[in-house]
Structures are given as C-alpha cells and as structure tokens.
C-alpha cells in the first residue's frame, strides 16, 4: 500500500510505574525518546519530524501538551504533529509517523506516545471529565459477559490470561507490574471489580512513554541493528452505538484485520503470523480479539488461551511484553503494543523474545471498542517468502 518501504530502527520506552514522581512530563517523554535514539544510533538532530500521541488532555490537565513538549522532544524548528484517537491513539501515532516516511515527506520521524496518569484522575477523565464515571471496566464488562455467554467459555479463561500476561511482564524490565508469583488462585481470589472482571484481571494505571523511530529503505538497510519493516497499516472506526451493532465482535475490528492480511498476503493468520501484541486491558479481551481479528474461528478464541497456544512458548504467543495488563500509560499503551511487535521481529526482545519471529501484528482499540489501529511488521519486506 505504502509508496516507499518504512523501517523501524529505534525503539525506546520508560520504566512504567504507578507514579513517576522523579520526572516531569517532559522528563518522562525525553527518557523514552533518548532510549529510541540510542537504539537507532542517532542524535536529536537526525530527526526530521515528531508525532506526539496521547489520550485525552484531561488525564494530566494540560491542554495540547505537545506545545510545551516541543523543546523536550527536540522539535524546535521542525514539524510537530499531535494525534488523539482515544485508546487506539498509540497505534495511530505509530501509523501517522510511518506514513510521513512512506509518503516521502520525511526521512526520519520520531513517534512518541505518553500518559502520566498520576498527574490527574484517570477515572474522572475516562468518564469524559464528568462525575459518576463507570470507567473502562464498567463499560466493557457487559461485552465480556456477552462473550462468555455466547462462546460457552469456562470462567477460568480470564484468570489464565491474567496469569500469562503477568508472567510475561515479569520478564520485561520496563513493565509496571512484575508479578512473577501470580497464580490462578490469586487472580480468582482478588476483589470483584466489574463482574466478571476481578482486580487482577484489570490493567494498572501507569506513568510511561514509548518512542519509535521510522526511516526509509536506505536508512533501514544502513541501520546498525536489525530493523523491523512496516508491512501494512490500518485504522478503522465504527460508531459506538448503532442498531444491529455487535460490540463483542465489532465490524471495524474485522475490517481492520482484513485490510492488514490482504496487504501482507496473509491467508491463514494463525499459521503465518508468528506472534501478536493485542490491546487487552481486561483479561477476556484476549480471546475476544483473537476472534474479532479472525485469528481464531468464532467461539474458538478461548480455546487458544486454554491450550496454552498464546503463552510465550505456545504456537501463537500473544502479549509477550506483558501487555496492557502489565503496563498501562493509556495514551502510550497502543504504541507499546506496536513497538513490542517490532522488537520481536528485530530479535531484540531478550527474555520475552519469541524464537524465529519474522512476522508480527500489533493492535490497539479505543472508545466504546469502536476505533481500531493495527500494523504488521516483518524482519524483511517479504517475510512470507
């Protein structure tokens, strides 16, 4: 689809925590960007344009913070762009950055997404900045109950996802939660938040940032470390409510995946894709997205979780980084998924590396499970041969 090939040559993220009181917002984003520059063997002056993404400005109480962050991100006298597409924003930020290179507008682009949730009240902001917010868990729990009823999935599937993602997170040095001693019993016994979601099946609230550096084909080939190649990008939106809508299995989720598979030439996602980073803020979204993205047949997603296929050593690992369940700086969460997919095909994911990963997908979703951003990345421009 793209005009010109795009390579990912730099990835950086902060250590995600409940509260990064040691840094300002500027310090937080700079920490991620600096790590991406080091990874790319670049300096600030090498970057031609910056794309900044984050969820609602109400999270920190700063309107259009990219204005204030221009200095910290080395954007002075350069183009700086601000994306906001709700929860999918991290993914959109990566896609917009990659398009600036594929279109030939710029040679080297820095996409950065962040959230410093400890500076404000996330629950208040998630409710649109109004009182009586039911939060994201309250919004998604009915969809999850509906999925369980329809699929006949046993109740322990959600617990299994919660354990698996936290064990992966324990291997990721940047993860907020490192719960190496988590067990099914601990999840099962944790407090009920939004039936059927228990405390340990829910994402944390984190401070964190993620940075990705894109360059063109020449830049990718000249990179000092293996690049990841952007094979396809897609953003699809549908209304949050409409007559006949299926929020458990949104049409936009299907359309987004179909566009990616078509562009890359994927005909059997389960077989051809080596691993996936999916936006799973609440445990049950793993099987739900496996189905809505056509990796598993309808009603069969939970069986992939149950069989261990989605574990780090399984045949279709999901959320090797620990996922949103292990770190959730909301605006950055999507870009963290996209970055982890790239790390995997670069072979740089260390303790959470999937052996021989050549083709990976990443996804982020937002608002009322209605906005979807997705990309496929490869260790080469043609990983399917």
């Amino acid at each position, binding site marked *: 689809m*793209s005009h010109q090939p795009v390579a990912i040559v730099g990835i950086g993220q902060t250590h995600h925590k409940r509260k990064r009181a040691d840094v300002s917002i500027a310090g937080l984003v700079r920490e991620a960007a600096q790590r991406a520059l080091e990874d790319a063997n670049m300096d600030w002056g090498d970057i031609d344009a910056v794309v900044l993404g984050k969820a609602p400005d109400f999270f920190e109480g700063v309107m*259009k913070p990219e*204005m204030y962050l221009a200095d910290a991100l080395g954007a002075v006298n350069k183009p700086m762009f601000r994306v*906001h597409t*709700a929860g999918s924003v991290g993914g959109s930020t990566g896609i917009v950055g990659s398009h600036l290179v594929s279109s030939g507008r710029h040679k080297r682009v820095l996409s950065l997404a962040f959230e410093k949730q400890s500076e404000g009240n996330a629950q208040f902001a998630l409710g649109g900045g109004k009182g009586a917010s039911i939060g994201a868990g309250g919004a998604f729990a009915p969809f999850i109950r509906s999925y369980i009823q329809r699929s006949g999935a046993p109740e322990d599937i959600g617990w299994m996802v919660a354990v698996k993602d936290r064990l992966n997170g324990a291997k990721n040095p940047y993860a907020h939660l490192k719960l190496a001693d988590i067990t099914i019993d601990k999840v099962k016994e944790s407090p009920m938040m939004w039936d059927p979601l228990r405390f340990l099946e829910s994402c944390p609230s984190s401070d964190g940032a993620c940075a990705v550096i894109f360059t063109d084909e020449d830049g990718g080939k000249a990179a000092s470390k293996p690049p990841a190649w952007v094979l396809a990008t897609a953003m699809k*939106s549908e209304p949050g409510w409409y007559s006949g809508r299926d929020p458990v299995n949104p049409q936009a989720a299907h359309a987004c995946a179909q566009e990616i598979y078509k562009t890359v030439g994927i005909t059997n996602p389960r077989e051809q894709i080596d691993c996936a980073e999916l936006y799973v803020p609440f445990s049950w979204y793993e099987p739900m997205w496996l189905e809505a993205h056509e990796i598993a047949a309808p009603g069969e997603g939970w069986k992939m979780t149950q069989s261990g296929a989605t574990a780090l050593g399984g045949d279709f690992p999901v959320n090797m980084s620990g996922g949103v369940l292990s770190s959730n700086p909301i605006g950055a969460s999507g870009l963290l998924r996209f970055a982890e997919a790239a790390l995997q095909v670069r072979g740089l994911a260390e303790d959470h590396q999937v052996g021989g990963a050549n083709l990976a997908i990443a996804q982020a979703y937002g608002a009322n499970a209605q906005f979807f951003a997705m990309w496929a990345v490869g260790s080469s421009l043609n990983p399917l041969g």
Partner: protein
Amino acid sequence: MAPSENDIAIVGFAQLPPERRSNLTESDLVLRSTREVIAQVGIDKSEIGFTVSGSCDYLSGQGFSFVQNTDAYGMVPAINESHVEMDGAWAMYEAYVRLLQGDIDIAMAVGVGKNSNSDPSTLFTVEFDPYYLTPLGTDTWTLAALQARALIDSGKATERDFAEVVVRNRANAKSNPFAQVKGDYSVDELLAADYVRNPLRRHDLPPTTDQAAAVILARGKRAYDLCERPAWITGIDHRIEAHLPTVRKDITTSVSTRIAAEAAGVGKGPIDVAEIHAPFSFQELILRESLGLDASTEVNPSGGALAAHSVMTVGLIRVGEAANQIIKNGKNRTLAHTTSGPCLQQNLVCVLEGDQ
C-alpha cells in the same frame, strides 16, 4: 496541468456561519458542515477513503469529545478515520499525507470548535507549561500583549498600525457572509478604547466563535471529477518553536513561519491572495514579513481571524478561503496560514495553485 498521482487538490470547502454562541452540539456542527461539502462536490460519502477531524477536548469541556463527533460521518460499514487535537488545517495535512499513500483518491478533513463554552482568558491558561507557566495564571492575551510590546519597542509598528490592521480586516469582512465581526471603523475611534492587556485593546483580540468547516481533497485526475478548477496543494509545511517566548531569540519575527514558508515554496512565484491566521491584529504584521509577502499580495479578503475565530476551525477556514480564491474566483496562486500556541509558536503554510 496534467496531475501526477502524487498531486493533491482541495476540491470542496464548506463552512457554517460563525456564531458567538451556537446552540448546536459539536457533533451537529460536524454533521452539517460535512453534509454540505459532500453535497457540494457531488459524491456519495462511501467514496471518501479517509476522514479526519481536528477539535479540542478542553474547548468542548469533556474528554473524548471527538468520539461523539464521529457519529456525524455515518461509519457503517467501518471507515478509515483519525483525529488530531489540532486545528482542522492539520487534519487537512494528515489527509494530504494519507492520500500520498496512494491507495485512496478522496479524503475529507473537518475542523470544529465551540469556543463559547469557556472564557478564553481562563481556559487557555492550561495550554501552557504546567509547571512554570500555568500556575502563574498566564493567559494567551497576556503573552500576546508582551509580544505586541516587544514589536512596538523594536520600532517595527505602533498601536496605530495595529488598529489599521483591524480597520482593514473588518472592512474586508463586510463582503464575507461568514464573518462575525465586520463594519466600517476609523482608526481614531478604535484607539479611543481602553486597553484589555496593554498595549492591546478589545479590537486587537480575536472574537469568540462557534463554527465548523470541512474540506474535501482529491488525488490526481480524480480531482477534475469533483471540481472544475481544483486548488492544487503545491507546497505545504508546518514548524514549531520553543514553547516559552523568553527562550525564543526574537518574538517580533516568526522563525517557524519563515522556515515553513520556504519549505512550502512561497517565494517561487507571486502570491495573489494570502489568508493569514493572525489571532491578534499585530501578529498579521509579523506574519506578512515572515511569510515574505510584498504589497502585491492581497491579505485576508475574508477579514481573516479578526472577523471570526473559532479555535480548531479558523485555520481550516483559511485553507478553504484560499482554495476558493482559485476554485471560484479565478486567482492562480494563493496562500493559507494557520498558527497555534502562545506568541505564534507553531505555524502551517500551504500554497495552492490553479491550472492556467
């Protein structure tokens, strides 16, 4: 001209009448402006390959406000869609880059802002550095006044020059059906008013406006199906400067505008008409110089941002007005500019050309 597949044009533009206080929701404003521009170019909405909007949660007074606005697009089946927390002119830039991917031919960009929800001197205090500026209660007007004072001190302009900008823009606005502030005024009459922020008077400040606007862009030959004389985007660039005005070397000039204008190729030929987004009267003087415009360019025949100033929409309207000069008014080469942030921190410059 015979367009290549990488040539992108604005083929349609619709704006709603500006209002001091609209009773419509943002979603309704988006619905009306997009329906109008779609009807204008005579396509079905299913032909639009990408839709992107620019709006601001803080202006609408709630987080995720753009989410409801997307209901205006009719997204069943799902569409390619995005949003920027920037003026609609930057949404137009994203649409332009998206069209350059080459897989779609038509895109729509929207800007919407209900500025009447808040008092700008209160609201815009949170647009600044949250640790050093916002706690001081610094507002856009105050920082603009400091910039105006610097301009006066530099000897480049006087308060009378500021008032002359206002008189000309308000007079131009008389012939613009989409102007909120218009009429015949004298410089002496304006200068008799009290200061709001010394040396700025009420007339030097932007009005508060609720408005929406939308443009449709098309790629390559497809543009001729939608518009007899498309406004081709022959140059576009945007730049940002340091946030704190005190960090910038000289706030009586706009470095980011100058770089963007050079990158957009403004100086490659004469500019017939320029639509400049100067929220404060004196900033038009700074911008004219930084854009490299001479006396042959007609500036703001619409009345510019002093005639209507819906933050998040005003920049896209400059693009639409400059495009209409080509589409409807026979001009050959026009310029659109928009700005964001304190003291002209961020600037976008777009050069449009018609077939000759």
